[in-house]
């Protein structure tokens, strides 16, 4: 039977364009030692470690093997997951399921993800290999173009102005100013966004995530031990990971993210959520492009179809708004791809613990973290609560 599991420690490095003074295992070590210190635990307390990354971005094959020392995972149960932008939450979910199942007596598990996008000259040719080698790949499609298809279809269906899109970027970058770990710390306004170079219609440069190096680690433990380690552990109340159809053109409507909606409803059933807008106190989404935040809000039931477009402009999704989204600054402030999801999970845990510093949202009880990867194909969600289930 499933056991109660809570996050009891969070560690993360600063996200930067390139960590030139750290090797891969050293970067991993920084996040892991931070999470262990936060939890008040040592390496010997870990029963298992789940590592996540995307090899190709780092230019090292099976990079997890090299990380084992830095992750505190030599001579212990260790595995590596790799699901694109979903990786961080995939690692979090695998770690949670190990602790929840009690398989082989496992109680305490570390999830750690390190990604060094700064090692890649250009990530888009790597992303291009997720596409069918015979038909799609020669078109040169990548993460930016697929998001642009989605954004364009949304704009055609529901309407979305340049200002509304730009306000999402401004909101996230403003949030990022208060996050010492965020990669981009520049104060921008709507005019700056719209004056930045057009990357692909409709996205300007500031509406796109940066390429970041960074590492994040989260320690979870099962049962009563969590309550002895932290005053307010962040209890896992639900998780879901779901795959959509691989082919963009076979999806019924790019303006509405059907598969994410299915995943969201499954999570809501598991957690007992009737109205996500009322239930969740904040969300950390996987939104590497501005429009993605709108699609996330609508698919996950925070807003009706076509109604979330002006939320950032109107302040609804600001840290002090009715539905704070990405109080950490989100992907538009930092995006170490394979680690981003775990940063999200760690950030939501810190919010539940009331330890998010200048980015703390007041009165947080329930949070939602999202990971997304592939050609917007793989979705993962995790819900945390200050109250033990």
């Amino acid at each position: 039977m499933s056991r109660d599991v809570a996050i009891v420690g969070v560690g993360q490095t600063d996200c930067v364009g390139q960590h030139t003074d750290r090797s891969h295992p050293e970067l991993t070590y920084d996040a892991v030692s931070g999470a262990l210190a936060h939890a008040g635990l040592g390496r010997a307390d870990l029963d298992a470690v789940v590592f996540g990354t995307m090899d190709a971005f780092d230019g090292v094959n099976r990079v997890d093997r090299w990380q084992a020392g830095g992750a505190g995972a030599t001579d212990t149960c260790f595995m590596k997951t790799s699901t694109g932008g979903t990786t961080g939450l995939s690692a979090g979910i695998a770690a949670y399921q190990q602790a929840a199942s009690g398989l082989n007596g496992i109680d305490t598990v570390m999830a750690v993800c390190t990604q060094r996008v700064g090692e890649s000259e250009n990530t888009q040719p790597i992303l291009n290999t997720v596409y069918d080698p015979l038909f799609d790949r020669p078109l040169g499609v990548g993460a930016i173009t697929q998001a642009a298809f989605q954004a364009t279809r949304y704009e055609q269906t529901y309407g979305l102005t340049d200002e509304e899109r730009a306000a999402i970027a401004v909101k996230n970058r403003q949030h990022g100013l208060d996050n010492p770990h965020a990669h981009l710390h520049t104060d921008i306004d709507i005019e700056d966004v719209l004056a930045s170079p057009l990357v692909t219609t409709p996205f300007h440069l500031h509406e796109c995530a940066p390429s970041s190096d960074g590492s994040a680690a989260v320690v979870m433990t099962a049962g009563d031990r969590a309550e002895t380690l932290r005053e307010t552990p962040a209890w896992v109340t639900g998780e879901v990971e779901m795959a959509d159809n691989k082919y963009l053109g076979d999806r019924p409507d790019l303006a509405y993210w059907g598969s994410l909606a299915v995943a969201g409803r499954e999570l809501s059933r598991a957690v007992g959520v009737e109205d996500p807008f009322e239930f969740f106190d904040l969300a950390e989404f996987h939104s590497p492009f501005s429009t993605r935040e709108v699609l996330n809000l609508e698919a996950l039931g925070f807003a009706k179809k076509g109604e979330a477009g002006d939320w950032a402009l109107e302040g609804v999704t600001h840290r002090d708004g009715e539905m704070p989204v990405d109080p950490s600054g989100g992907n538009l402030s930092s995006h170490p791809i394979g680690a981003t999801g775990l940063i999200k999970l760690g950030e939501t845990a810190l919010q539940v613990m009331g330890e998010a510093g200048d980015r703390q949202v007041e009165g947080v009880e329930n949070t939602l973290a999202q990971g997304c990867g592939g050609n917007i194909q793989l979705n993962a969600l995790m819900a945390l609560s200050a109250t033990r289930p």
Partner: protein
Amino acid sequence: MTNAYAVGAGVASHEECTDEVFEDPIRLSARRALDDAGIDRGMLDSVVMAGYDTEVGRSISNMYVVAPAGGTLTDEARIADDGLAALSVAAAKLQGGGYDTVMLTGYGFPEASRVQLDNLAYDPLYVRDTGMTDITANALQAERYRSEHELDRSVPARVVAKNRANGARNLNAHRRSAIGADEARRGAVVSTPLREHDISPVSYGIVSVVLTVEEYAARYGDPVHVESLGWHNDTYHLGERDLAWSASLAAAAAAAYEHSTVVADPMADLDIVELTEPTSYHELVAYEALGLCARGEAAKLVTAGRTTVDGDLPVNVSGGALAWDASAAAGLAGFVEVMDQIRGRAGNRQLDDVDRGLAHGTGRNAMQTNAVTILEATDV
């Protein structure tokens, strides 16, 4: 004890994978596993995958695999290691509740140069420039074992002959010709002490297994219990290890035995063992790490013929990795061999009276990661 029961197995052989589009043999393997279990893909609560992106030449390769393996709008998880390491992910899902039936698919589809990729797995600061690959790392381990135990060259050659004779009867295998120990001994030197036949081939193969919980296992014709499992990791740096031994395999096996209610003395209690041996020497290392014999005694098991199909503990009845090494699918290939032997469905390789067996998978860099599982006949 785990709450995982294997109720269906499906294999796309080396031959069935070559010259095919990646997704097609995955579908073939999964379809066979579903048919074997007598269910449709709509019954799957999750698809758990194991494979390496770089080898198959596709980033986030589970994107390609999940639908042909039976999962659209279904929970999915993917491990970049051997399929038996991913078995622990599936077992945790089944044990933790919320999942009743899981498809586990391992894929080996070598569309990129393994030698080049294996070199890229070594750290770029110190080791990569030495030209280290998986083969040279395995050779270092083999040589260390050889010198530690003053191993006669005839012993690994006999391992090759045994496994290749077994593999000649396995229609799924890659190398399907039997060769004698003399021929194995005369093979071209690849990396001292390894000769060509000592090294597992770079093979294609997809292996799928349907797993379910005890409650539903009874509804299927022929369930096999995943009695216990263990997985473990070693240090990355070869210089930090005792290469004449595999500490991580010994630890993975110890975990599997600790949580098993049926295996106390593996040599006496097991009826079959299927290994993923990257070289013939590693089969010897594995005998010792699995506790089939004391350290340094593996050669005696081989020379006494105790691990042949006629011996008291047949090892690699399928031919093992020396006959077919489909990368991340290799451990699951052994899993299916043990499963079929227990179910009495191993055809021309069927042994008498198989009630329980052990399967092993490993993840390169001189067996840095290892996973072990014990399967047992069940009456549920």
